[in-house]
């Protein structure tokens, strides 16, 4: 396995060689057209096992169904079956006005609803060619970064649970609760927040908002250390995550993988830095990268990202200006004919909105570029030749949300 991954890292392979969705039924009794070695005992009657993981399985994070072809415990191939949570968000968008559609985006990546809302609002603002006022941008940044921490915390808990460490789950949920409390106080909702409006924010911060956010910062920093004491140097954790689910930078780019998964492969790319939106250009923060592109690096990258988010929030809370929170937006939003693509760095990767306007009050076409969906495609490349236990670890490390995969 390690030889294979080394090879992968050195040579940029022809993308066609790892295309997904090779029909499993065709391969049932031969391994000839698979790229890895044949089983050690071809003369034993070693039927490959086809296992159906999900859609109801403790470790598939929702209703993902993965069909695994196994030789013993070794994964020969996978096929993802998705769509169990398909709600037709893009179709709904075509039948709602721009304002009416705003709450729907929260239901896609429901653990990072604020990010979804930010991406959508900014895309429409761009289409209208308006800018949110600075104070609104600061509030947006604070809430979005809080949401990134919450999303990473949820990821960490479930990922650790998949690998068998039960306890971090409860620690992360305890601390995520504090973020949800801030959301609830700000906009009345905890999960599907609908925090932003097109043109800015609807709500002014509540009294004591800044103090609570600052309290949260001092509260959560030692908690992140606490998670790390449980996992970072834990021998079993290292063995379970190092060299597991390796994806090289070339592969990651070819497969369109974004977010922490891409950064762990060594590509220093973050939309907040590369194509700054809101007012991320004002803040001083770093983009963590990994070297090996394995599960452990992705874990480290996300841990550092949480700390960097804290840094951003601290700067934003200290520098939050006075002023209006809503730009001048017409009562009825009717963008001119045209199309726009806008993307933000969601906790899971590049979340893009492609909106086509025909000049009416409803989007003519609204396409969401979901990070989870595209990242999930890399699963097959990452788990081939590994063991069943690694499939679980890799699904966890991809940090997918099925609401976003299926939309």
């Amino acid at each position, binding site marked *: 396995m390690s030889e294979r991954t080394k090879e992968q890292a050195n040579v940029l392979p022809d993308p066609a060689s790892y295309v997904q969705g090779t029909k499993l039924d065709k391969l049932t009794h031969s391994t000839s057209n698979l790229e890895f070695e044949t089983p050690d005992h071809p003369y034993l009657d070693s039927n490959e096992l086809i296992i159906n993981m999900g859609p109801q399985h403790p470790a598939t994070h929702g209703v993902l169904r993965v069909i695994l072809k196994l030789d013993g415990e070794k994964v020969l191939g996978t096929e993802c079956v998705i769509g169990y949570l398909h709600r037709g968000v893009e179709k709904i968008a075509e039948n709602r006005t721009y304002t009416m559609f705003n709450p729907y985006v929260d239901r896609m990546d429901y653990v990072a609803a604020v990010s979804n809302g930010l991406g959508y609002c900014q895309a429409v603002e761009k289409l209208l060619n308006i800018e949110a006022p600075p104070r609104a941008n600061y509030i947006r940044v604070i809430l979005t970064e809080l949401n990134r921490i919450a999303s990473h915390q949820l990821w960490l808990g479930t990922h650790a649970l998949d690998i068998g460490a039960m306890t971090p789950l409860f620690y992360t949920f305890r601390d995520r609760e504090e973020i949800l409390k801030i959301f609830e106080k700000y906009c009345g909702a905890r999960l599907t927040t609908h925090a932003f409006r097109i043109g800015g924010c609807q709500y002014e911060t509540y009294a004591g908002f800044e103090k609570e956010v600052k309290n949260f910062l001092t509260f959560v920093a030692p908690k992140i250390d606490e998670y790390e004491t449980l996992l970072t140097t834990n021998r079993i954790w290292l*063995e379970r995550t190092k060299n597991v689910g390796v994806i090289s930078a070339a592969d990651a780019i070819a497969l369109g993988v974004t977010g922490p998964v891409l950064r762990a492969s060594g590509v220093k790319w973050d939309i907040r830095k590369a194509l700054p939106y809101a007012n991320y250009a004002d803040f001083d923060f770093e983009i963590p990268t990994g070297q090996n592109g394995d599960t452990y690096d992705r874990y480290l990258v996300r841990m550092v990202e949480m700390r960097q988010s804290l840094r951003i929030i601290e700067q934003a809370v200290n520098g939050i200006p006075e002023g209006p929170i809503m730009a001048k937006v017409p009562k009825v939003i009717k963008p001119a004919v045209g199309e726009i693509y806008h993307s933000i760095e969601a906790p899971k990767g590049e979340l893009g909105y492609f909106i086509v306007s025909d000049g009416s009050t409803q989007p003519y076409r609204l396409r969401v570029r979901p990070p989870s969906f595209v990242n999930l495609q890399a699963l097959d490349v990452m788990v081939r030749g590994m063991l069943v236990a690694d499939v679980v670890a890799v699904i966890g490390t991809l940090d997918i949300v099925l609401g976003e995969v299926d939309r």
Partner: protein
Amino acid sequence: MLNYIMSYLGSPLTPGQAGNQFWALIYVLIIFAGVSVVVMAMNWLERKALAHFQIRLGPMRVGPHGLLQPIADALKLMLKEDIIPAEADQFVFWVAPLIGLLAAFTVYTVIPFGPSQAVSDMNIGILFMLGVSSLGVLGIVTAGWASNSHYPLIGALRSSAQMVSYEVAMGLAVVSAILMTSLNTAGTGTLSMIGIVQAQQQQGVWFLFKFFPLGAIAFVIFAIAMVAETNRAPFDLAEAESELTAGFHTEYSGLRWSLFMLAEYAAMLAVSAIAVTLWLGGWMRPFPNLLSGPAWEFIFSLFPGLTFAALAGFTFLGTIRMPSHSFFKIQRIGLGVFGLLLAFIALVLFIIAIAGRNADGSLAARTREGIDYVYWFMFKVAIFMYLFIWYRATWPRYRFDQLMRVGWKVMLPISLGVLILTAIVGVLVK
């Protein structure tokens, strides 16, 4: 029948009463009931302890602090529908949990809770124990196969490979402890469980500290292997929840499933008992040589009572701290009564300790001795049970190939080395 044979096999001298079949039967019944009750209590303790590790409260609703939860669980499991999958191998599916349970409980026939507090004293005690506990895997393997389903089959394959591998390291660690028993004037060791503890008594040291660090290394290897042997975290691959849903017992439900749980906890207790017997001096109290004399004897005999008194104290504290809402009235009364019960037990234990303080062979003295033996044995086993819970709360799960690698490439060479070194040091010391 087995016990009938065992009683004949057992030397008529040790363990005193157990040579008698009537007593053997009584012991068997006591142990069967006792282990079942302890398993239920363990169930509650594990849930509570795990919950507190994880900043939760655990069961709180059924009875004060969830004290009646095990009973509710047992009732629920008994009343649940018993599903046998249509495609399963009916007979094997039916018999598999019984194999596991049988193996787990048979082990208790040789566990010495005291010099005469055992069902039998076989001269192959430890061999028998290892052999029977290794039969437990048959229950898991047949269960996984009989379910005729993929996840259970993978679980069964994993657990059979795992248990066979770890038994080797475990056996070698045990052998190094047995070697230490032969360091007496006669030069003959023993396989008898009671004999092993007596050997530690004669040599005046727990085998954990013998030839330091050799005994300690063997003990650590055994302590790791026993976790693997009982399929507990971090070696719970056979029932790895996040990978195989529930592993070998995925298709089991209701009472049959609870038999697996019973067998698992019984096996945990059994392997802990082996570890205590072999390395931690079995029923002996701490420092029997250093702190000897009637005064120390008396102080140590107060420990059982003190333990129960402390438990009663905590219970009363909990009663006081309960909210003074009328909703909690019944819970408060229940907890108070439970505390009183514990206090009563503590009182009885104190009375026995004081009444039997002179080692004069009277009934009170013998009772006190018996209680001391059982108490210290159980106390040491309890430490291991707590460790089992602690492991589960702290560590992620090993992957299968890593588990095998640790078993064959790390534990086996180390235990072999320890065995050889122990033999060499034993000869040199002589």
